[in-house]
């Protein structure tokens, strides 16, 4: 029961309190780049959730079954990058074959995620905080999925705000990217309000 409670805590922490974009400032490139309209944001968010969950599982296995037994934990970053890149490629191929509709909606965003620092970030964070704990595989999976959800949430919020900003009366010099940065900063400040929650 205590384990279940800690898993729930990890989930809420990574989705809201320690949001990957707004608290840890990871994955800012797609956050500004793909937040022009909410449809693209949802597509990108789904792809990130999917890839982050898969990454968490695979990197846990690589770390525990390959790196630890041979005492080469210091290679974790390069091994994780290798795994993530191969995994995304594989997933893309399988998706294109088995579910063309899903591929059409996610396909263009998947290659973007291959080298996204947020995905590597979730793997490294898992390694630093969760490996070695009891039920660490499940916790890693929860943290990965949660990080993806948090990213999708932040991206969707940003996209909907930016859609409204398109029509708003903004000073000429702030139009476009500058107002997006200001918005992102205000959003991050707002999310800081959650920091006392857990």
């Amino acid at each position: 029961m205590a384990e279940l409670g800690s898993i729930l805590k990890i989930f809420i922490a990574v989705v809201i309190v320690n949001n990957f974009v707004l608290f840890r400032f990871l994955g800012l490139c797609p956050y500004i780049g793909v937040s022009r309209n909410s449809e693209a944001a949802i597509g990108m968010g789904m792809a990130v959730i999917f890839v982050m969950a898969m990454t968490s599982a695979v990197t846990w296995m690589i770390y525990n079954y390959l790196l630890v037994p041979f005492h080469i934990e210091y290679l974790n970053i390069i091994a994780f990058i290798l795994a993530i890149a191969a995994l995304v490629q594989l997933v893309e191929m399988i998706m294109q074959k088995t579910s063309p509709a899903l591929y059409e909606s996610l396909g263009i965003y998947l290659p973007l995620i291959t080298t996204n620092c947020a995905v590597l970030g979730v793997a490294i964070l898992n390694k630093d905080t969760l490996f070695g704990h009891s039920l660490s595989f499940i916790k890693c999976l929860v943290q990965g999925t949660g990080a993806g959800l948090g990213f999708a949430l932040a991206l969707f919020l940003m996209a909907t705000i930016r859609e409204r900003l398109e029509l708003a009366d903004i000073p000429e010099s702030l139009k476009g990217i500058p107002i997006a940065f200001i918005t992102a900063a205000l959003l991050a400040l707002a999310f800081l309000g959650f920091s006392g929650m857990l």
Partner: protein
Amino acid sequence: MFSSVIFWSIFILGALGLIFGISLAIASYIFEVKSDPKVNAVFSVLPDLNCGSCGYPGCKKYAEAVAKNGEKVNLCMPGGSDAVAKIAEIMGIEINIAPGGKNVAFIFCCGGTSSKKVMNYQGIPDCNAAALVSNGPLQCDYGCMMYYSCYKACKFNAIKINSDGLPEVIPDNCTACMACVKSCPKNIIKLIPHSASVFVLCNSKDRGKDVMDACTRGCISCMRCVKACPVNAIHMDEGLAIIDQNKCQQCLKCVEVCPVKVIRTTKKIEVDVCQQN
């Protein structure tokens, strides 16, 4: 201890890379998605200009639409009848191609400086902006204002500014992508068959007297060309003579009888552009 770390590092990473590489190679065979060969065949006969005149975002998308969704084969303007014929052959469709080859844009106004101005427009030098201010600075509501929106819209260097200051289409460069047609607020530019050589260079649908007041180079609907034409290729439409290019035999009788000299042939336009008045 130290050497074993080096060995295991190389071995594990090498093995990981090898396994991922091989499994990706195998997966690419297993999960290979065969693309429709018709898409590539159609794409190869399209001009690859990505002008968007077919309504699709680029030639590739149009090729997909034709091959997979049965889209019409004749939407590619730049490709003209050649591309239509080739696509139809690939798709196994029989079509009748009208004689005359490709279409080109043509600017139906030779007013230029002969057209009277009723005000001095000093705003943004753009036809669409100028047309917003009480329908443009000209007295003629149908004439070319010479702010060259069509010239700016043309991506293929097919519009030049002639000595009279009027924009003029260079037929050999024109791909009929319709960009200039859409950019003109007065709808002066229309598509004509490339083979056509006789034109009524006026767009004014006003009555004869109004046209004469506004411009010395306008069709005054005197109907002389209609009567002179031996093959009945000219008819009057809202006070404007229109030549049916499919019927025209290019006998040039209309050019001779036109009192305001707005009916011209391509050759004369090339030699002496809008200067006969």
